[in-house]
């Protein structure tokens, strides 16, 4: 009897041969999705969550990959046995897919109207009709003035608009199934909510099935009917969303749920001491970037205010969270605190001294006391240096801090402090996982015994469970060493867990600041409220 399910993935196993041996990316995985239903595939990086869905779209190249067993039944027909041409005819017409980063996923050199129409043209709709329908679709997904904007290129749109364009292209032929691979991970939190709402709405109208691949429990809660949890290429748990999230049966799912930030009590200011002078005082700091003036033009020089009149204080042992969406000026502010950028106006006092008025020699001394951890540990660690060289480099720069004979011993101590082993010192960065690399970056920042560490999106690139471990480490260091942090993040829940006070930035301005409890509990500014609503940080929302 033929199976009537829309899509049924059955006992699928896929291997990738690598230099280190065969990787079992997908191991005996089965899931189904029906019309009108939304399945979430939840997992951390390397769990194999994308691979089975990519196999549905024939995006897994064999070779090098090997599909060793299983079936992908689309309305009862096994896609794995179909010819390449038959599968091409399914793609975009009956099943379509959208991806994580819409800027990369749209072709930069063709107008977006053309790209949407292409989906229809390759499946036999004439060019004229396709173009007209592309314009209708743009309007449908909420792009204003679609007639004119259809001729624009991807770089002329915002991140959220680009994902809407991807969606327009994916639904052009009213597919039975839409697969979305991390559709909102690259977007700002308020935009994430809008895109998810749009997808749900389109699903209600057309009754298509959806598969959403994500690492984000919030997305699962918001849109999915059922969920499969993947770890190491296997499904460890599956079932209706409400059941899996409220009564997880597998320990991995439980750990994942525990690691989700924003669901515990507020961070306690364990070590903060309110001395007479704050450790850091920022007064009326602005940063203006000037564009290039036009030749022979009397028009005023174009300028962008990246940071506009920012003022705040940070006492010793405190942690200040800075939240805001992309383009809010939070990273520019961090760069100015680190001396990587000079403010156009205002002053920055560190321990009572104005950083902007110090001599070069004095600035060099202050540098020691302010360290940093950046977002991407892969990019911020030199791949050709050993961990020993990376962690001891600050001592080579700041001569006289530590005699060379003690470097080895001290590096071992620092590695232990951040949860690594002393003999890791001889290895290179690529031999570590993302979370371990960020631990190395933290060990390096601790080398000079700083008083303040500026973390710019320091855990954003990491999986949730690793994020939780790093935050625990930072908390421990705060307690043991009396460190102060400036913690910049777009993830409100993370900041809520870690920071003692919060600054909310919007378009270069500080729109709200105060103790974490107050900002999250009783937000004053409209933008803060919108941010909180979009990220759905509600104490105990899931506990019930």
């Amino acid at each position, binding site marked *: 009897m033929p199976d009537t399910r829309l899509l049924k993935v059955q006992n699928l196993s896929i291997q990738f041969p690598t230099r280190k041996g065969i990787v079992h990316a997908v191991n005996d995985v089965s899931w189904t999705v029906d019309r009108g239903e939304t399945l979430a595939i939840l997992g951390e990086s390397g769990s194999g969550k994308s691979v089975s869905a990519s196999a549905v779209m024939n*995006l897994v190249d064999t070779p090098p990959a090997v599909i060793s067993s299983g079936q992908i039944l689309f309305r009862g027909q096994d896609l794995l046995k179909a010819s390449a041409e038959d599968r091409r005819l399914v793609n975009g017409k009956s099943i379509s897919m959208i991806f994580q980063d819409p800027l990369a996923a*749209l072709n930069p050199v063709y107008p977006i109207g053309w790209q949407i129409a*292409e989906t229809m043209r*390759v499946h036999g709709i004439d060019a004229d009709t396709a173009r007209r329908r592309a314009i209708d679709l743009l309007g449908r997904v909420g792009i204003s003035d679609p007639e004119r904007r259809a001729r624009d*290129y991807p770089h002329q749109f915002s991140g959220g608009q680009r994902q809407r364009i991807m969606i327009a292209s994916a639904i052009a032929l009213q597919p039975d199934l839409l697969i979305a691979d991390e559709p909102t991970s690259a977007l700002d939190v308020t935009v994430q909510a809008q895109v998810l709402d749009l997808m749900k709405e389109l699903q209600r109208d057309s009754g298509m099935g959806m598969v959403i691949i994500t690492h984000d429990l919030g997305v699962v809660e918001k849109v999915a009917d059922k969920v499969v949890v993947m770890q190491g290429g296997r499904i460890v748990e599956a079932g209706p969303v409400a059941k899996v999230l409220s009564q997880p049966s597998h320990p991995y799912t439980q750990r994942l749920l525990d690691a989700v930030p924003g669901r515990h009590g507020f961070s306690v200011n364990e070590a903060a001491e309110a001395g007479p002078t704050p450790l850091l005082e920022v007064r009326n700091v602005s940063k203006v970037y000037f564009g290039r003036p*036009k*030749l022979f033009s009397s028009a005023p020089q174009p300028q962008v205010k990246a940071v506009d009149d920012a003022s705040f204080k940070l006492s010793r042992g405190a942690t200040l969270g800075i939240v805001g969406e992309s383009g809010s000026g939070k990273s520019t502010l961090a760069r100015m605190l680190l001396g990587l950028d000079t403010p156009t106006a205002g002053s920055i006092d560190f321990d009572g001294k104005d950083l902007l008025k110090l001599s070069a020699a004095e600035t060099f001394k202050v540098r020691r006391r302010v360290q940093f951890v950046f977002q991407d540990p892969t990019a911020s660690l030199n791949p050709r240096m050993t961990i020993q060289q990376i962690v001891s480099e600050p001592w080579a720069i700041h001569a006289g801090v530590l005699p060379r004979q003690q470097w080895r011993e001290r590096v071992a101590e620092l590695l232990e402090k951040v949860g690594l082993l002393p003999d890791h010192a001889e290895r290179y960065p690529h031999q570590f996982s993302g979370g371990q690399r960020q631990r190395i970056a933290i060990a390096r920042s601790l080398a000079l015994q700083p008083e303040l560490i500026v973390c710019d999106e320091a855990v954003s690139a990491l999986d949730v469970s690793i994020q939780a471990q790093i935050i625990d480490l930072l908390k421990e260091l705060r307690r043991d060493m009396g460190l102060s942090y400036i913690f910049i993040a777009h993830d409100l829940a993370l900041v809520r867990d870690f920071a003692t006070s919060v600054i909310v930035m919007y378009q270069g301005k500080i729109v709200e600041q105060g103790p974490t409890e107050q900002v999250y509990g009783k937000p004053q500014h409209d933008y803060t409220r919108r941010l909180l609503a979009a990220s759905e940080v509600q104490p105990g929302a899931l506990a019930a």
Partner: protein
Amino acid sequence: MGNFIFKRSLQSVLSLALLIILVFFLARFTGSPADLYLPLDATEEMRDQFNQRFGFDDPVYVQFFRFLGGLLQFDLGESIQYSKPAVEVVLQAFPTTLMLAAITMPIVIAVAIVTGSLAAFRPGGLFDRIASLISLIGASTPNFWVAIVGVIVFAVWLRVLPTSGTGTPWHWVLPVAVLCLRPTGVLVQVVRSSMITALSSAYVKTARAKGVRARAIVFVHALRNALLPVITVASDQAAGIVNGAVIVETVFGFPGIGKLMIDSVLLRDFAVIQAAVLVTALAVFIINIVVDITYALVDPRIRHS
């Protein structure tokens, strides 16, 4: 765009001026033309007469200002070896070289794009390995050797092609073939690596998910994104030929600008050297403008910045 071309022209005029000054004075360091053109036993009187006729009796700076004055009236002086205005001599030779470039470059670009794209489609596959080997040989074999071997094989042994000259289309076959070899070898590699990057991009994955045919993915989606570095290298190669395909022109007796320049340098024909440098520099300048416009046409992000 107009603004941009204006700025580019200004820069080019400056570098051209510098180039002309250098060529003018460096050429005169090589010695007096009188030594070459007059018989060994020429009298002092004959030498004076020769120098006076071509203005070599004046101090160098006076010669320079006279040259600048002439430049403003498009008068670049008289060739000693041909006893004709230098501009006329150069403009007679230049079309041959331009023609060589105009035939060679389209062949090079077409062959490189097709071969490089197909090689990039399956990196490490049989076609890729063969194409890479051949293009590497093409890129590293010296032109003069291929030219001479080509003459021996096709003109002397097989007697199917003429050895030298420009009379018939058959005269162009060997020179163009030899001239194509190196640029094609290099450009295939550029297309290949640029296409490999483009084919592994996310927008290619999107195109596959949309059901776009493989051929359209390669030649519509990936190729246009892969073109920028290809245009850069190809324009460099075109400029190289326009500046004179010296070896090929010499081996095949082609009366092009490269051969003319070498001959003029050897004979200290200053006016012709200067005129040739000016004309080829102008041609390279035009190539660069065309390339900049092509960039903007190919990539909308450049157009909008």
